[in-house]
């Protein structure tokens, strides 16, 4: 099939950027979205033009690198799917597709479709961990974890840190990302001793990084390629209130 692409081109952080139209010819339905972009890029290079810069690495939907806004939807039309796992069979001959980077104050554009998501790392630095040093851990089976808790912790830990939740939110809030980390560690017995401090520190870091407020519209949940449920947000809100009530204790 043949497609028309309108792609965001921006030479660098200080460039204003604009949409540029390209033709994508002979696209096979078995291609992934990024393979389609690879082919467009090969054409650009053959013509001596700058290829479209985009992030990708695993191309298996797990590393969280890929990050395209496709027709205004993070990762495009297939629910629960990252851009790299989106296949062209979801489009049809003659379609026009608009491809843009994530848009959020906390995620500045570096070039074309590549954004800076290091704000997520800085949130984790503020408390997205259990403070144990290497060595000295007790035998793993000394800490039994009820299976339902372990399963819920896993569901939350499945977040790939891609930032689609932020891109989908009109306020560019990072609540789903942060609440997933709070839930992952908060469901486990190992995570209890730092539970109150963790939620306070993570929320504070989230605000400091310039993410917006959550207004419970749950566009984040719909956009999440790992289908992380927004229930974690209400759970975090409860944790947060309780931590505040306990003060600095």
């Amino acid at each position, binding site marked *: 099939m043949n497609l028309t692409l309108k792609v965001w081109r921006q030479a660098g952080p200080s460039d204003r950027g604009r949409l540029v139209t390209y033709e994508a010819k002979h696209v096979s339905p078995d291609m992934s979205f990024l393979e389609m972009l690879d082919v467009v890029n090969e054409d650009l290079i053959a013509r001596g033009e*700058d290829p479209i810069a985009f992030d990708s690495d695993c191309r298996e939907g797990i590393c969280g690198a890929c990050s395209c806004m496709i027709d205004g939807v993070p990762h495009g039309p297939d629910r629960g799917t990252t851009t790299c796992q989106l296949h062209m069979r979801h489009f049809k001959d003659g379609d026009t597709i608009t491809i843009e980077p994530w848009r959020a104050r906390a995620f500045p554009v570096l070039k074309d479709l590549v954004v800076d998501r290091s704000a997520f790392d800085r949130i984790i630095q503020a408390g997205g961990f259990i403070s144990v040093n290497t060595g000295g851990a007790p035998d793993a089976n000394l800490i039994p974890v009820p299976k339902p808790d372990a399963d819920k912790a896993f569901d939350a830990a499945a977040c790939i840190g891609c930032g689609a939740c932020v891109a989908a939110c009109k306020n560019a809030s990072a609540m789903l990302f942060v609440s997933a980390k709070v839930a992952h560690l908060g469901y486990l017995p190992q995570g209890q001793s730092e539970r109150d401090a963790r939620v306070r520190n993570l929320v504070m870091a989230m605000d400091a990084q310039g993410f917006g407020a959550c207004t419970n519209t749950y566009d984040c949940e719909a956009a999440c390629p790992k289908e992380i449920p927004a229930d974690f947000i209400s759970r975090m809100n409860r944790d947060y209130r309780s931590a505040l009530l306990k003060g600095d204790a």
Partner: protein
Amino acid sequence: MKLDSAVPSGPIETKWDRHRSEMKLVNPANKRKFRVIVVGSGLAGASAAASLAELGYSVHCLCFQDSPRRAHSIAAQGGINAAKNYSNDGDSVWRLFYDTVKGGDYRAREANVYRLAQVSVNIIDQCVAQGVPFAREYGGLLENRSFGGAQVSRTFYARGQTGQQLLLGAYQALERQIGLGAVKMSARTEMLDVVVRGGRAVGIVARDLVTGVISTHSADAVVLATGGYGNAFFLSTNAKGCNVTAAWRAHKRGAGFANPCFTQIHPTCIPVSGDHQSKLTLMSESLRNDGRVWVPKTAQDRRPPSEIPESDRDYYLERRYPSFGNLVPRDVASRAAKAACDSGLGVGPGGLGVYLDFGDSIRRLGKSTIEARYGNLFDMYKKITAENPYEAPMRIYPAVHYTMGGLWVDYHLMSTIPGMFVIGEANFSDHGANRLGASALMQGLADGYFILPYTLGNYLAQAGNSQAKEDQPEFVAAASDVKARQDRLLGIRGKRSPDSFHRELGKLLWDKCGMARNAAGLKEALAKIPAIRAEFWQNLAVPGTGEELNISLEKAGRVADFLEFGELMCRDALVREESCGGHFREEHQMADGEAKRNDADFSHAAVWEYTGEGKEPNLHKESLTFEHVKPSTRSYK
């Protein structure tokens, strides 16, 4: 080049414990004066960087992705081994050691493997303490499964995303140290050279992938945790960015490269669908626990699988290997699939596929059980192929997956350049000629959490501060080499993209140095690679400049290194006149087509020394002796 494995004396069971108490220690007050550069933030690099920072060293960690959490380790699916014997089925440190040495076809160093099996148990404890959500039994204890044909259940897992969960554990430990100011993290930064001064590794040259700025960094020790080189083949299950650059540049500065021809081809991957293919997707090996592999008995049987009756199917693994059946090790399963396809029995486009059929298991256990076990894998398969594996068998084909070869290291994980340590998949160490499933994650974390923190301290305590500074001539020279090479890549302004050269090299390596190799094919590849390389340096197209985020430039640098490295891989395959593990030389097989090892002549690690551009490399040998696991013919019949 001198190869001293530095294995401590004494009985194998107590070597590591005794050595640990004998190694030199750095005075705690002095630790922060030692600067350690860790290149890589996968399981090996992140665990090492975090652990070293906890001990008090000043650590600088780099990765080329935008966040350390995205290292390729994130993609590991199946699990991690540990000799916990929680399943009470007879596992032990000894058994894991034995299985690993045997599985590696007797081409690994016994002392290292024993230590790996020993520390495996600590890894699970550490990961659980960090909050890694491993699978659990209803009673709340950890669940294990049998993996990759092991006769015991020693594999810990977190659904089909074990690598992700382990890496997040290590990443969080790393971020904690970054937050505490103990680790400086440089993401989107690529190491392009090692700086050697007075015979010691004292720093690196790196390029900021966003601004293009080339910088030098001095240190007291350098740790490479840069992963494997499977992407030499272009198509592999590795992430797109995986490369040989760091290891290759270190090799050119004096680090011996061991067994470059030992590559693991994984039997269960989704077959290639067209010329546009950019990577291959692994279907976890665990699928072979319940799936049965077969091809039609007659060539060119075009019937859909559901219309091929039992009597017309050849369950060739069950037929050829009655005792292991579908669970034979990876190298054996891959070669058997190739043999079936080579004789025209393959299925799907181009005949490059075999069936992995869950029909029997679904009838026996019910769809819901299969869904609970493999649901996410089945979904992934469906997403990629648009076929439903609950209704029709999967089509699978082998693909390049892992590299057992890598930079040579001694018992302390130090390369032949003093001060440069190599951990994780980047080193050659513990898996010999074939790695067992779920053992790479174990090795990466063993190296990073529990071995390097001791051996690096031992080195620093003796070598002392390097007194290295960025204004020393060695740094200036290395940086200008890197800059000159980059200018050369940018200056060609030819017609062909970096990917087009990479695909060409990859196809050649796959055909001549892939699942089966022979002298004629390897010689042909050795003649062709220099020609591809010559064209690369004349006709490469890299648009843009070096002073910006330039994805073509990044790729070009990596392809240039693969083009040099590929030659070494073929050379190594050519001189290893035997078949062992993942290295199958067609000239060396038994009458029944099984691999024929040659212990008399090849019980060694082949370690290559770089001697200069256009010159033949020197071959050195670390001979391997087996005192505990007596080499025998691996038989899975």
